[in-house]
Structures are given as structure tokens and as C-alpha cells.
């Protein structure tokens, strides 16, 4: 007999189905790639422009991917009040994160580095903790476990970038981003194989 626990399981299964498409992985991977490129110790405007473009691409890939890949394959759902409240919290965190990323990139471009009086190790720790907190919160509210790993990679990369006066952090971020994009592509392809597009005419007749 269905208990409240069973309903929670069903709701969680329904919610989790929206993460099978790999788009969050692609978003995170491209975000890391873009941030890694802008963090490279290179003052050519083209490099920064490329980084910003990839960060913008991450948002585009996500939104367009949902419309062209996810919805035509598994349909659409409007979640209840409980899940909507959690989604709102996530959107606030995501918005803050994107703005923070862009702000950090702009600061780097104009040479406005963090407070020089703060020891690099402390600044690195603070950066790492902030990023971990942001993505950990997102992972918690979204109940999306892979995001903990991506958040950790990003936090480590950011901390290395701040702590070491070299490109180690940038390359760590680039590598992390590349791996995450690769994972995202694999998950997306698996999703597309598992849920082939149905012929449109099958869906909206005789109901």
C-alpha cells in the first residue's frame, strides 16, 4: 500500500528523471572551461572573450538542450509547491554563481586581484569554501549528487588558482571542465538512445 515514503520515492524518481539528460553536466563543464580560459595568465582580449563566450554558451546549451532534447523525449511536468520552492532557491544560487563567475573574470581582466594583504593560502581557502558552499547547496536542494563532485573540482581549481602564482589552477579547471563536458556528452547520448523521439502525431490524438 502506498505510504508517504512511497510517494516521496515516486516524486524523487520523477524529479531525478530530469537529470538523466546530461545537460547539467554540460552546463557545469562549459562553465569550468570558460572560467579556466579567463583565468589563464594571458592578457589577450581574445582569450577573455573566448572564456566569456563559453560561459554564455553553457547557459544556451542548457536552455536550448532542454527544449530540443529533453522535452521532446520525456515530456514536461510542473512540480508541486514543495519542489517549486526548492527550484527557486536553486535558481537564486545559480544566478548568484553566474554573476560571481563573470565578476571574477572581469576583475581578473582588469587586474583587480583579491586583497594582497591576505595570505594566498587563506584567500585560496576562502575561495574554495565559498565555491564548495555554493555548489554544495545547489546539489543539496536539487538532490543531484554529481554536482557535489563538480563543485569540489571547481573549488579545488579556484583555490589552486588563488594560492599558486602559476597556471596550475587554470589548467586544473580546464581539465576538470573537459572531463565534465565529456561526461555530459556521454550521459546525453545515453539519454537520447534510451528515449528516442516519438512521432508527433502519436502523442496528441484520441485522448
Amino acid at each position, binding site marked *: 500500500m502506498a505510504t508517504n515514503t512511497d510517494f516521496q520515492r515516486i516524486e524523487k524518481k520523477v524529479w531525478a528523471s530530469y537529470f538523466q539528460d546530461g545537460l547539467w553536466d554540460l552546463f557545469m563543464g562549459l562553465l569550468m572551461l570558460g572560467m579556466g580560459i579567463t583565468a589563464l595568465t594571458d592578457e589577450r582580449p581574445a582569450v577573455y572573450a573566448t572564456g566569456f563566450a563559453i560561459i554564455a554558451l553553457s547557459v544556451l546549451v542548457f536552455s536550448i538542450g532542454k527544449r530540443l532534447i529533453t522535452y521532446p523525449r*520525456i*515530456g514536461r511536468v510542473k512540480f508541486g509547491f514543495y519542489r517549486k520552492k526548492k527550484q527557486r532557491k536553486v535558481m537564486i544560487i545559480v544566478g548568484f554563481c553566474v554573476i560571481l563567475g563573470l565578476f571574477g573574470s572581469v576583475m581578473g581582466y582588469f587586474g583587480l586581484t583579491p586583497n594582497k594583504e591576505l595570505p594566498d593560502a587563506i584567500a585560496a581557502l576562502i575561495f574554495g569554501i565559498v565555491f564548495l558552499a555554493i555548489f554544495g547547496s545547489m546539489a543539496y536542494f536539487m538532490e543531484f549528487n554529481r554536482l557535489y563532485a563538480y563543485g569540489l573540482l571547481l573549488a579545488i581549481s579556484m583555490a589552486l588558482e588563488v594560492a599558486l602564482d602559476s597556471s596550475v589552477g587554470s589548467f586544473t579547471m580546464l581539465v576538470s571542465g573537459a572531463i565534465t563536458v565529456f561526461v555530459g556528452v556521454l550521459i546525453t547520448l545515453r539519454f537520447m538512445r534510451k528515449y528516442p523521439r516519438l512521432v508527433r502525431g502519436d502523442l496528441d490524438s484520441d*485522448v
Partner: protein
Amino acid sequence: MSETGNESAPPIPNIDRIVHEPARLMILAHLYVVESADFLFLMRQTELTFGNLSSHLSKLEDAGYVSIEKEFLSKKPHTMLRLTDEGRSAFGQYRQSMKQVLDELPGQ
């Protein structure tokens, strides 16, 4: 539900047969946990075929438990499904009835 034939046994509550059918129970359970879902989503979640789902949804709509709203999304026809208040109430009542039946079963 069949009668036990035992006069001292507690009466078995009426089980709503519209809800009780396994496929419809699955449909209602999925609609119960969301605000609304489209036909494709429900089909993927319940793993019912198009015809099967369509047939069960028609019965649920006739019973007043599910509302089926056709709309256009980017010029494409789109069907959204949601439980009506009556449907939520019927589903809740079904849960209570089944719980009662199972709680009153003799212990092993």
C-alpha cells in the same frame, strides 16, 4: 472485493475500482506528486503504451478524477494532465480504504 462469508468479520470498505486498477493506480500516483504533467511524461514514467495510457486516462476523465487540457505550445498541440480535487480526494480515500483492509487482516 469478494465477501468473506464470515458474519463476525468487519465489513470490507468499498474499494473504488476506478482507482484500484494497477495501471490507473500508477497514473494517479504519478499525478498525485506533481501539479501537472503532459501525456508524454506520463507515458515515460508509467511505461504504458500510448493506447493503454490513452484508454485509462479516458476512464479517469469520465470519472472526473483527471482533467485533460489541450493547449498549443510553440504552435504544437500539447496535452497537460492533472488530478482534479475529486481525483485527489478519491485517491486519498482509496489509500485509507486499502490501509484499513490490510490493517484488519489476521496476523501470521
